[in-house]
């Protein structure tokens, strides 16, 4: 799959207002796929957030829908019932989780456990280094 998630997470914030408008204008019962320029857009709405993926012609639409769902599950598990605010205030975490799950537009790891393990390890690593730095501060 050569989807452009890498770019997309930027796009969802600012570039493609035009795409955002198109997706927002769609009605609930419509299908989750639409052609947009040379790409196909697969999107799904979760509460107030729309998740969009741009894929190429030969890519599998349904599995892309489930990529979105798995990502939402990952966020949910990490934040504990994720809401939009979590993503706004911890946008860097949302990026890190995405990088573990997808890389260069391809699925890297589909196991929820493995992805979260990687993120939690990193969190752990960070707490450790912080304790050390706090200690060194005390010493000096």
């Amino acid at each position, binding site marked *: *799959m*050569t989807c452009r998630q*890498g770019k997309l997470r*930027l796009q969802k*914030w*600012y570039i493609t207002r035009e795409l955002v408008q198109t997706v927002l204008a769609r*009605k609930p*019962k*419509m*299908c*989750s796929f*639409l*052609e947009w320029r*040379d790409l196909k857009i697969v999107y799904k709405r979760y509460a107030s957030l729309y998740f969009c993926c741009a894929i*190429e*012609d*030969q890519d*599998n*639409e*349904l*599995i892309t*829908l*489930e*990529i979105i*769902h*798995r990502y939402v599950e990952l966020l949910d598990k*990490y*934040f*504990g019932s994720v809401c939009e*605010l*979590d993503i*706004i*205030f*911890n*946008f*860097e*975490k949302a*990026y*890190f989780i995405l*990088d573990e799950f997808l*890389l*260069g*537009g*391809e*699925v*890297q*790891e*589909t*196991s*929820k456990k*493995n992805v979260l393990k*990687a993120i939690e*390890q*990193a*969190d752990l*690593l*960070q*707490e450790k*280094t*912080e304790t050390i730095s706090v200690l060194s501060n005390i010493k000096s």
Partner: protein
Amino acid sequence: MPAVSKGDGMRGLAVFISDIRNCKSKEAEIKRINKELANIRSKFKGDKALDGYSKKKYVCKLLFIFLLGHDIDFGHMEAVNLLSSNKYTEKQIGYLFISVLVNSNSELIRLINNAIKNDLASRNPTFMCLALHCIANVGSREMGEAFAADIPRILVAGDSMDSVKQSAALCLLRLYKASPDLVPMGEWTARVVHLLNDQHMGVVTAAVSLITCLCKKNPDDFKTCVSLAVSRLSRIVSSASTDLQDYTYYFVPAPWLSVKLLRLLQCYPPPEDAAVKGRLVECLETVLNKAQEPPKSKKVQHSNAKNAILFETISLIIHYDSEPNLLVRACNQLGQFLQHRETNLRYLALESMCTLASSEFSHEAVKTHIETVINALKTERDVSVRQRAVDLLYAMCDRSNAPQIVAEMLSYLETADYSIREEIVLKVAILAEKYAVDYTWYVDTILNLIRIAGDYVSEEVWYRVIQIVINRDDVQGYAAKTVFEALQAPACHENLVKVGGYILGEFGNLIAGDPRSSPLIQFHLLHSKFHLCSVPTRALLLSTYIKFVNLFPEVKPTIQDVLRSDSQLRNADVELQQRAVEYLRLSTVASTDILATVLEEMPPFPERESSILAKLKKKKGPGTVTDLEDTKRDRSVDVNGGPEPAPASTSAVSTPSPSADLLGLGAAPTAPAGPPPSSGGSGLLVDVFSDSASVVAPLAPGSEDNFARFVCKNNGVLFENQLLQIGLKSEFRQNLGRMFIFYGNKTSTQFLNFTPTLICSDDLQPNLNLQTKPVDPTVEGGAQVQQVVNIECVSDFTEAPVLNIQFRYGGTFQNVSVQLPITLNKFFQPTEMASQDFFQRWKQLSNPQQEVQNIFKAKHPMDTEVTKAKIIGFGSALLEEVDPNPANFVGAGIIHTKTTQIGCLLRLEPNLQAQMYRLTLRTSKEAVSQRLCELLSAQF
């Protein structure tokens, strides 16, 4: 502020985000942001060194501001500093900033690459992964140059952690996609294939993506992946829903991996090994069987994952196109989905069925769903689904159902979304022409198109109807009567006035006997529309009027009055004024004989590929309306369609046009793709295919060199010896060309029995039509004679025709043969496109057979301007600012042949140091890529 803040809360960042969210207006937000930017700038510039935490916090703020849509032009250096922090989160934020705000400053890139290099060498898997993620997210050429050689090593190293392998595989994939030339193939490739056997499913998942991309370019290097992929797939498909633990997704075992494996298999033909093939067919059948089982969960995720695999399986079955049983099962499955309550499934079923319709095994099975599809067109609420229904109707159309499908499309057109009207108009026009048995039906259909959607009827469409009416005398009377009636409507579309004006000007006489459509009535009818029309239409009508002067002498005074009026003779528009003046003069001074000659009925148009089809292809992009589809469909019509009405070329033959016997009017798209009727039966024509090869001289020495010189130009001296000089002048347009050959007698003595002959080999003959007339057998001393060759490219070809010249000079018999430089690239039409489109198409043409590459030594000085001129001379467009490397040249164009059009992309990469070039050609057809690459390679 949210309660949740995982890991280290950067309090300052959270406060800032809250502030932004609390801003009541856009202005307040911008003000707050500017304040923050000023603050960060002063911190970064301040004398006090910032600690890592502050740097991280500020960099994070910049990132947030950037994501809000503001430009960020500083902070890169601070982010780069973070990369070398030994604190994980600082490093992580540094990498994130670099990945999101890529900067092309070379000094920065050097520093970034240095940091990445250190992390890759650190043996700390988390650091290595961060570095790999950054390379994969940026994917720039500079990073490729720095790391493409290291990553394969990391990927196959025995001691790399699984997570590192996964990231390395996808990182390499990204670099390969961005700059394939930088990734060296080698011993590691075999080991990558074996990652398909890896115990860790995540590693397999990442590796399959890499292999799928690499094998497209190097199918032979990776062909062992087929059997490995089959056995992996088979293990997954046959596993129970809990076997794969965390890789099971809503009771579906490893759906992502399954889909990827099925995609990989679509890069190859069906496995040759019977055991492997058997196992694979079993897998495919299992997937089809599972679709019929009751779902294990009511969740949509379960059915989506399951159906994702099912659709990919069907794609593979269609790709193989060799198992009738599976194809029909696939079609039945899709048929069920056509009526599914999930919109997504209906959409996908319509889309997938489109490709099934072009397989001869399943075309008939697809046709049985016609009513459902028509119903979808009428009732679907989502325009994207209706669009798919239109596509499918177009794909399933053949002679048996064309009237029904065309009628449905016409009625849909009345309410269709504006965005897809033009495409539907083109489709209707093509189907009506392609499957017309009764041309009155064709004329009615096109006039209906103009009536319903006149604004969307492009020039190509109305030109085409005129061409067809002119070429078919059995429909001319009907056409005249029908347009006459249609023009009676008080408000009719300007396109109808154009068609009506043209047709009545040519064939109005055929209905003039009826007092209701007498010449004068016809004239008044047309002239009543005149003042409402645009200038081009008025110009056309003026021509109609002068044609009337010839057809109906009795209306001449009326028309002269109109031409003479001030509004014509003194019209502000130069074109209209000129026509009025000239036509008026012509009608006054010319005798009836001269008028009759000048204003004679238009001769039949030369047949070529329908310009409408070309337009549709252009609209849909190359590759979507492939010639393969057409030939396949035609084949299936022959197989299944029962007795076919003879394509109506009979009337054309009787037309007194010298080229008529080549044309097969109206039948061009339906004619089987086989050899065209062998031409040249007429005694007037030189029999270009005569088997005179036994007496033909071998090619003249140096003829090869001369031949190559003509690849990029059309005029010049082809051959010269002491007696004879042969010069060429040629012009090409789309799939047609005309070549003037000049034979100069350099001596003062006559050449006798001077006989030039054009010879096409058996391979070439079906693909290239050449027509010419014999020249005078005597060429006086010092004289030059000219021969015209009409050229038609029927299909792509490789060889060049040979020109053999025999004559007597003095007492000796002379026999010379040279290759005639009619090469495939002459039928190029340049295509301008933007960088994005170019690479999009480039990617679409990524099958291994579509690309041909040649690396060769420069034979001429490597001069940029000369190279550009050659590429343009070659016929393609030279696309500037498309290739990221300005030293490279890229070009794009379409090869026009009678049967098809082939989109071609090319890229030439010079290497000045090595004095070498690499030339890559991508087209939808292997033979075309091959031939163009050969031809162009010889030019540098």
